[in-house]
């Protein structure tokens, strides 16, 4: 049975297919049509909703793409839609500002923008007096496509909404009371949803997950769902058995070096991109900057580091970075726990060493010391909310002007994310000079034989990767980090 709060009203149902998305359930079953379908793939943001979760600080909200999220995601949580946060004549500040700036034309994308803006308002405006920065606004809106306005009035609306009288949407969610929920009381061996031969399980601890994997080793693991969600909404596939792995607190932890895990940073596989943006901001600024450009705010609120690694896409953005950082993976499951260096994890296109009944538990990386640097570049047709043509990640250790260790890894260049073995060898042991980088760039073609596809040609991929080595040298030199 799924139980959730929609605009302040609690709803329960035992009749929801586990494969049913939030968008579909709202529009088709509840006739809640203020949320729109633009692409059904998490790319346009027309379906954006605010998803609230009870925490020690009260209900905290984040935006999600409801088109690719399963109804299980809202279980015991709070959903807000555009017509829930405002009424005619009594609009939410985001809504009022949008009218005042003439920010809607055809209006189809508008509800999604309103949700992104209202979420930003809730998190950044209700207790703050400082104006929102352009960067905050763009980060909130980059996953919402508008084809009519050219965005200027919408950005203005986001700036103006903070000046309007305060509204706290928690009051709306709590209208008919908040309901306590004790995960420990849940019988997770039972399916949370079961319909037409499809089942969904929701473990709250690793032990429960392991028990379920023993019983259902072939179950589909669902973390953020930003990739496999498309199998449901684009290919119209249906999974028989789904295990949600995104409610397990142990897997959503970021432990800094020195916190339990010795000298390494421990990132749970269930850590979302949004959480990682914060967790890595200080220790790996280049990585955090890259994370700002993965998908959109909605996608980063859903997608996980573990999912990005385990789905073994050749164009995932974080695997090259983790390869450059020589990450170690912790894998657990019915065979027991094991550790695998990421460089040994991928076997081929969409293939990994993981066996049925196993799950990815955590990623471990070492912090950067003196002389060590990480440089990342993402090349895509569009700056935000796009998939890489080339993902470039370079780790360097430069001591006294000499490169002692170099690890370049790229995405989009081979059937898997891949280290550039020959290039790395050509860099290692050489002086940190432009000549070294230029010479090493000549090895790129030996390391990679990329394909031509809709994102870029093979020639461009090779050329830009060579040039990015030059760019990395220039920027590192300018920063003086490795000189």
């Amino acid at each position, binding site marked *: 049975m799924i139980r959730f709060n929609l605009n302040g009203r609690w709803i329960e149902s035992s009749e929801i297919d586990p494969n049913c998305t939030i968008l579909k359930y709202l529009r088709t079953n509840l006739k809640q049509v203020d949320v729109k379908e633009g*692409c059904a793939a998490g790319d346009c943001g027309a379906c954006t909703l605010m998803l609230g979760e009870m925490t020690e600080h009260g209900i905290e909200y984040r935006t999600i793409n409801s088109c690719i999220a399963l109804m299980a995601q809202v279980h015991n949580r709070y959903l807000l839609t555009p017509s829930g946060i405002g009424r005619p004549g009594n609009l939410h500040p985001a*809504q009022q500002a949008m009218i005042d700036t*003439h920010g*809607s034309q055809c209006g189809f994308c508008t509800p999604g923008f309103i949700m992104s803006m209202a979420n930003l308002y809730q998190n950044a405006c209700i207790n703050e007096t400082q104006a929102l920065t352009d960067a905050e606004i763009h980060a909130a809106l980059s996953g919402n496509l508008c*084809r009519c306005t050219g965005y*200027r009035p*919408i950005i203005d609306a986001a700036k103006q909404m903070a000046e309007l009288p305060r509204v706290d949407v928690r009051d709306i969610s709590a209208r008919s009371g908040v309901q306590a929920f004790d995960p420990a009381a849940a019988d997770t061996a039972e399916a949370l949803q079961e319909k037409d031969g499809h089942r969904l399980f929701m473990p709250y601890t690793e032990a429960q997950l392991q028990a379920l994997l023993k019983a259902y080793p072939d179950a589909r693991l669902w973390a953020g769902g930003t990739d496999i969600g498309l199998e449901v909404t684009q290919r119209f596939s249906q999974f028989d058995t789904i295990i949600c792995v995104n409610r397990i607190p142990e897997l959503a932890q970021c432990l800094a070096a020195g916190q339990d895990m010795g000298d390494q940073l421990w990132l749970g596989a269930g850590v979302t991109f949004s959480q990682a943006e914060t967790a890595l901001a200080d220790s790996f600024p280049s990585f955090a900057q890259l994370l700002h450009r993965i998908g959109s705010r909605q996608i980063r609120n859903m997608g996980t580091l573990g999912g990005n690694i385990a789905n073994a896409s050749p164009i995932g953005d974080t695997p090259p970075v983790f390869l450059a950082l020589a990450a170690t993976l912790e894998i657990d499951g019915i065979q027991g726990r094991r550790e695998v260096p990421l460089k040994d994890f991928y076997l081929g296109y969409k293939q990994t060493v993981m066996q049925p009944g196993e799950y990815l538990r955590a990623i471990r990386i070492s912090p950067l010391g003196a002389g060590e640097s990480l440089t990342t570049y993402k*090349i895509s047709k569009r700056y935000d909310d796009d998939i890489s043509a080339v993902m470039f990640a370079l780790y360097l250790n430069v001591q006294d002007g000499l490169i002692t260790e170099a690890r370049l890894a790229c995405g989009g260049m081979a059937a898997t994310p891949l280290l550039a073995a020959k290039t790395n060898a050509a860099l290692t042991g050489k002086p940190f000079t432009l000549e070294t980088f230029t010479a090493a760039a000549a090895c790129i073609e030996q390391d990679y034989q990329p394909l031509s596809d*809709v994102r870029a040609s093979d020639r461009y991929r090779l050329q*830009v990767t060579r040039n990015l080595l030059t760019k990395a040298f220039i920027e590192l030199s300018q920063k003086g980090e490795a000189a």
Partner: protein
Amino acid sequence: MSFTSSKVTPWEQRRQRPAKGKSGKELAHESAEKHVLGTAVYIDDMPEVDGTLHAVVGKSTIPCGEITRLDLSGVWASPGVVDVITVKDIPGDIDISPAFTGDLILADGRVEFIGQALFAVVAETFDQAKRAVNAAVVEYKEEEAILDVKEALKRDSFVNPTHTMTEGDVEAALQSAPLSVSGEMYVRGQEQFYLETQISYALPGEDGSVKVFSSTQHPSEVQKLVAEVLDVPVNYVQVEVRRMGGGFGGKETQAAQWSALAAVFATRLNRPVKMRLDRQDDMVLTGKRHDFLNRFKIGFNEEGVILGADIELASFCGYSADLSDAITDRAMFHVDNAYNLHDCRVIGHRCRTNTVSNTAFRGFGGPQGMILAECMLDDIARAVGKDPLDVRKLNYYQEGEHTHYGQPIEDYYLPELIATLEKNCDYRQRRADIAEFNKTSQWKKRGLALTPVRFGISFTTTFLNQAGALIHIYTDGSIHLNHGGTEMGQGLYTKVAQVVANEFAVDIDMVRVSATTTDKVPNTSATAASSGSDLNGKAAQNACITLKKRLVDFAVDYFKVSADDVRFENNHIVVTGSDGKEDWVSFAEFVNLAYVNRVSLSTTGFYKTPDIHYDPKAERGKPFLYYAFGATCAEVEIDTLTGEYKILRADILHDVGQSLNPAIDIGQVEGAFVQGTGWLTSEELLWDDRGRLASASAATYKIPTSVDIPQVFNVELFNRPAAADTIYHSKAVGEPPLMHGIAVFCALRDAVASVADYKVSPQLDTPATPERILNAVMACQGTAE
């Protein structure tokens, strides 16, 4: 009048001030509050009638060939399936072409592109229908396909005959010209990417009639085509659209197929049928902006003055004519943009290919012609070593000249507009600053361009320039407005309502707009060619004039005054008596008085654009009532190592005549600029070598996001009343500003040219993706592979 709605402010208060929301004032979109609440109803949001079924089509997987086997037994057997049809089940005409022939509702024995609809299925749910189509077994005898423009040209494969416009003696002009450049430019198409995908909802009626809710820019055409497909008279079909979630031309002709299929099922089964294309189907099944292969040779003197031009355009039409003939013509009309090409020849080929039939998209061929003009001017500037803006100035049309299709140049204040922008945006200083920046910056280079827009307004098919409106005034003074124009976000309903409020001098809240529907205003033209407010605004005004005359005549009779003594002001009718005393009667009271005295309070209005003509055989005439003008200065920065770039600044000055609603007009200008910029930068329509659309999803086709707009973005209206007798001397605004995006492209090319010290004019096709920019940079550096 015992009850007055609380929505209506008291008349006494209204008397004290001018009427609100009149034409010419900023006013929010009539649906703005509903937009932000998500309560504006799009067709998929309408409450579904019990028993509604959902239709999906099965698609071809080869680009060209004969269907040798179409086994649908698996489809019939799929869960939830209620009915399956092929072309044989169509009761009437299977051809749904808007102007010519060849657009088929379902494939008839052969397929002409990958994705062509082969059959259609209805099921209890949308998902069931989507799964069911996969169970079809289809076999083909494949034939060689023509997949691109060059191949079509080689094989003389055209959907319509080639047109040629000729002015003077081009051969002689090019021979005697001291200098010339020639070249070739491939301009890619563009996906409309309206946020609301195509959708129709058909409800069966009595006697085989049907009511179709269709997300279409052209309800009358949908009505006619549905009737033909059903083999019923046109009066058996009603088509209605309250609003679209974007159209951009993509719903001008291409909504008909889905409406007709839904109507066929609805009448066969006597059940309501919804046909919604999901994004992946919409991208594959519907046409886009045409790619163009443009070739040119242009002759000029040492100063950079154009002496003659030989231009050949070839459009990528897809498998059928659709609107390609008029689109290619419009490209031909706009290859001059702001400049006199003097002796010239403009050839336009309409290439037939085994791809989806391309269709209207904001600009309708104009952008693909205009970008060639601007790139040629840049080429000339680099050839003679001058600032491109100076070369442009040498070549502006002068009053009294005429275009290569014979239209006289009148009211040509574009040079003045450009000069204003040049000064306001500090062009000269910034040009100098950029030259300095580029000297010292090794990897990052900046570019600048100031390009004009001159866009012809009117349907070039003259008879389409007509419109109708219907106005009722009810006894409480509230006004019901209906017209043939459709609302797709452009604010047409708002603007026309403002016209009506203006005419009666009543507050805008007295005017309620209603869904466009074929049984209120018949035989309408598409809401297209930027003509919406020009045509429907005038038609509504004419209806108002008729009603006002009736009301004034009544007042003259009733109050025993002359017509000059009656006026509409501040929500009242003011009657000046012979003693000079004014009698103020509220609009509501007066209208009711007219009603009880048996005055008709309902009328239609009609408008046809005067003074336009075009002879398609001679390729001469005056196809446009007037031109809309504008200019943009754009500044960009490129990374010469990766080809990535940013738009640092854009300054736009645009001419909408005397604006009907400045807020809406600014919105149109900004939105069009960003859409035009997307067309020329990140939006890359790609087909693979089999003819399959490779960029067929939002994941692979990238329209701009909020961070892609210029970091500094200044947009202003050039407020000068239009000389033509348009509605309140405004000008059309839908399409023209799209071509402001060309400034960004020219600025990118300028930045690339800086790598070779502006001595080379870089070869750059569109869109200017990072890959194309890097290739162009390397070509300029002489380092290309």
